[in-house]
């Protein structure tokens, strides 16, 4: 028996014990934390870095998202940071020497009402002015691009057109995390799992380090990258942030023959669908309305999402739901992230990505690494500072871009 078992694959990273101090400590070993570690090494030559993860690497929202990557946001600030991410996605498979199945198969955002059409056309124009690839498709062109979409006029929410971003697509999320982790580890960065932060070491308003379940760790700069649990962590430092944590659910079907050539999103009926390389249909919904940390949501949200998907794709009628799950997303009042300094010296936050964090992973890591390395914001994350809630310079992506990220 043992003769036929394959060799254990190579480990992609070490499993080190924490040292007493580091130049930079990142709290949270998900996609954004790992990307930040990688770019600290790549862009700034800083490798005296630890990533602390309370569970296992990339076991939170990085394992739970619907893997959609696009940059067709309305506002300049958003388009800039997400387009920077998309450019990195295009370069990363070679740069990290890891084929994480990044597939630029195109994303359609459907319009179902005259107002959807106006907003879609406006967004296409805004995207083109910002150098983001975008096209407006009429219903026949939608049908040509994605033959399984029902464009007949008699349905409850008829397809009146769609925006198309051809360079958008999907990637294999776990492999993205492993690619960042392997390269960060090769640079000597310590990825420390099973290490929960339980408090902060401080001198007045200056943060000196973190208390963890594996002992105290000192650091010159500390960056939180803990998504849905950011409020809990910040609370340990006495910091209140404009965040609310909600469940966000998704589901997959059984493995099916390739039928769905692209990604289809619809804000109006709140569903987004793609087909993974293996063959599962992957669908996501909107957030559950109530605050939660339970990593599960209510079934009527799934039911509504399935009803919408069925009307758009009658061919899915015989597909079965195999798994549903939920992640916890941290949502800000303007649905844009918060990246930058806090009122406490040496403590930085990267949070509030809400339902759209996966696509931003490389840019989030890029600008957060810059912020942690220099103590100042990168031009791309300057508009996303915590102060915008006091100054009023919000980046209101609610309804402006696709709500269902």
């Amino acid at each position, binding site marked *: 028996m043992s003769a036929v078992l394959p060799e254990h694959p190579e480990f992609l990273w070490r499993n080190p014990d924490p040292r007493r101090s580091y130049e930079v400590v990142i709290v949270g070993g998900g996609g954004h934390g790992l990307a930040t570690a990688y770019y600290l090494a790549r862009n700034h030559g800083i490798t005296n870095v630890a990533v602390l993860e309370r569970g296992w690497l990339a076991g939170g929202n990085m394992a739970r998202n619907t893997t959609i990557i696009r940059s067709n946001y309305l506002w300049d600030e958003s388009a800039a940071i997400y387009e920077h991410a998309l450019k990195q996605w295009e370069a990363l498979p070679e740069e990290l020497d890891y084929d994480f199945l990044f597939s630029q198969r195109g994303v359609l955002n459907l319009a179902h009402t005259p107002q959807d059409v106006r907003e879609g056309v406006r967004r296409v124009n805004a995207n083109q002015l910002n150098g983001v690839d975008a096209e407006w498709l009429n219903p026949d062109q939608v049908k040509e691009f994605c033959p399984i979409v029902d464009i007949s006029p008699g349905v409850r929410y008829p397809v009146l057109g769609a925006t198309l971003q051809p360079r958008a697509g999907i990637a294999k999320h776990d492999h993205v995390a492993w690619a960042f982790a392997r390269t960060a580890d090769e640079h000597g960065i310590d990825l420390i799992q099973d290490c929960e932060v339980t408090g902060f070491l401080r001198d007045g308003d200056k943060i000196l380090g973190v208390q963890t379940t594996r002992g105290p760790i000192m650091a010159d700069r500390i960056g939180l990258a803990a998504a849905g649990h950011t409020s809990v962590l910040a609370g340990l430092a006495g910091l209140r942030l404009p965040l609310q944590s909600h469940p966000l659910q998704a589901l997959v079907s059984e493995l099916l023959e390739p039928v769905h050539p692209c990604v289809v999103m619809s804000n109006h009926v709140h569903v987004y669908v793609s087909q993974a390389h293996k063959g599962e249909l992957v669908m996501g919904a909107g957030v559950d*309305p109530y605050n939660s940390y*339970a990593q599960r949501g*209510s079934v009527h949200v799934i039911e509504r999402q399935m009803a919408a998907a069925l009307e758009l794709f009658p061919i899915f009628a015989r597909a079965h739901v195999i798994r549903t799950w939920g992640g916890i997303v941290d949502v800000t009042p303007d649905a844009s992230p918060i990246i930058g300094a806090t009122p406490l010296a040496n403590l930085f936050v990267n949070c509030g990505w809400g339902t759209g964090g996966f696509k931003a992973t490389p840019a989030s890591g890029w600008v957060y690494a810059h912020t942690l390395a220099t103590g100042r914001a990168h031009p791309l994350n300057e508009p996303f500072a915590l102060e915008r809630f006091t100054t009023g310079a919000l980046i209101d992506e609610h309804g402006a871009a696709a709500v269902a990220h």
Partner: protein
Amino acid sequence: MLLIPCPWCGDRDETEFHYGGQAHVAYPQSPDALSDAQWAEYLFVRDNPKGEFAERWCHNAGCRRWFNLVRDTATHQIVVQR
């Protein structure tokens, strides 16, 4: 789906309700006197605990009245009606 005890109608499905977020957030006594930071705190910052949370619900598809609950955000258990 949550089963929510409306104080006037009894236990009803979550789909009959609208969520209202944190309870007991009072409108500032003298809004003109607030600094920008205080105004931002009132407008944008709410508690976000992992654990018990006092929150508002409106029974939209029933009596249409607002009421408060304490619910545990880690377990979804409704702890007490207030």
